[in-house]
């Protein structure tokens, strides 16, 4: 039965939480309507669809709303089971979920705050490095976190670290992830940069670096 699928994604162009959703939709070849939101001027639609958190991304599939990027990724994998992004093996799935949380909570926090708080920069950069070292170990012997091909954790880590945090650090003249200490990670980033859907779904570099600078300044002056 071919029902007309209606997929809408509300997002913000610079948000890593959004970009990973787009990677998953593109991998599965799912057409969608994209609605750009403004951080400081949220649309009535966004506020209606996500009254609790008032955040993006928001996925609307045939009228049903799904919220929270990691929840949305699992939903996409279950609603469109072809080209799976998560392993079928429960242990591998649990590891992917574990590291996704690590990225979205501890790495995200330490990473952003390391840019915003000049006084705590050194300590936070060191903490971020310690956290990313766990990802480094996961990549040994693999092309991607997903193994031979990209998947859930590649989208989560990719959208957050090389294609978001690192751009912010670059704008500040900081090198957090070095070739010397993180050879596996660097190798993975090069692999990711070759993937068409990743290239299509990351924010434009220069504009993104500028945006990250602006956000950091805003937080610092607040």
């Amino acid at each position: 039965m071919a029902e007309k699928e209606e997929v809408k994604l509300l997002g913000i162009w610079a948000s890593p939480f959004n970009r990973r959703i787009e990677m998953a939709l593109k991998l599965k070849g799912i057409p969608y309507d994209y609605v750009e939101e403004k951080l400081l001027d949220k649309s009535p639609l966004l506020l209606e669809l996500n009254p609790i958190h008032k955040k993006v991304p928001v996925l609307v599939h045939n009228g049903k709303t799904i919220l929270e990027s990691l929840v949305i990724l699992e939903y996409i994998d279950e609603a469109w089971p072809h080209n799976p992004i998560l392993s079928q093996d429960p242990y591998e799935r649990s590891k992917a979920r574990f590291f996704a949380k690590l990225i979205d909570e501890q790495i995200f926090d330490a990473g952003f705050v390391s840019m915003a708080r000049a006084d705590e920069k050194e300590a936070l950069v060191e903490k971020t490095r310690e956290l990313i070292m766990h990802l480094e170990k996961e990549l040994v012997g693999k092309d991607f976190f997903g193994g031979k091909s990209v998947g859930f954790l590649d989208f989560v880590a990719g959208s957050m670290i090389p294609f978001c945090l690192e751009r912010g650090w670059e704008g500040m003249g900081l090198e957090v992830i070095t070739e010397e200490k993180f050879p596996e990670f660097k190798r993975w980033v090069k692999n990711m940069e070759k993937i068409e859907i990743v290239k299509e779904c990351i924010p434009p570099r220069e504009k993104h670096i500028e945006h990250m600078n602006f956000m950091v300044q805003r937080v610092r002056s607040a």
Partner: protein
Amino acid sequence: MADEVILLDFWPSVFGIRARIALREKGVEFEYREENLRDKSPLLLQMNPVHKKIPVLIHNGKPVCESMNVVQYIDEVWSDRNPFLPSGPYQRSQARFWVDFIDTKLLKPADNLWQTKGEEQEIAKKEYIEALKILETELGDKPYFGGDTFGFVDIAMIGYYSWFEASEKLANFSIEPECPILMAAAKRCLQRESVVKSLPDSEKILAFAFKIRKIYCV
């Protein structure tokens, strides 16, 4: 081949209890190992080097960390009985969303109820009740969050239900008048066999709560 299932846990933990309940719901035999959080075992440090926290489920030598991750893992491995998640992708996404809500919007105020005092504690009380009210609206007139059967979101809430009495006494307020429906659901869940077997004595929780409060604020 017999499964070897070990659970590294800490008896009053609202997170550890989720894993205990999940295993019992599925009828899985497991070895419970109590951790002393001030003197963590080499096994815990080896199995959860990232966070060094409980609960950790060790299944045939492989570790699974983070409580709701453990619950999902248990659901996926022992998938032939008592599913915790509904079968449809949308309903599953809703269950995951509410568990995320519990662990982001309820956790901090719940902790602040015993970690703070004065103005800060008043704010915590307000945020805690607000979060509970949102959950109560979501529950509606269903017996469980997932509908007719006990499941993922209910498992996530049990730890908080078991701490209701202690929270009320620590922060001097009453939950029932604010959230009568949720309170009724809590009472129902707390009588469930897997929960009764996994729950510490409420007297013990109370005593523990007051003890840690003393440590956090005079």
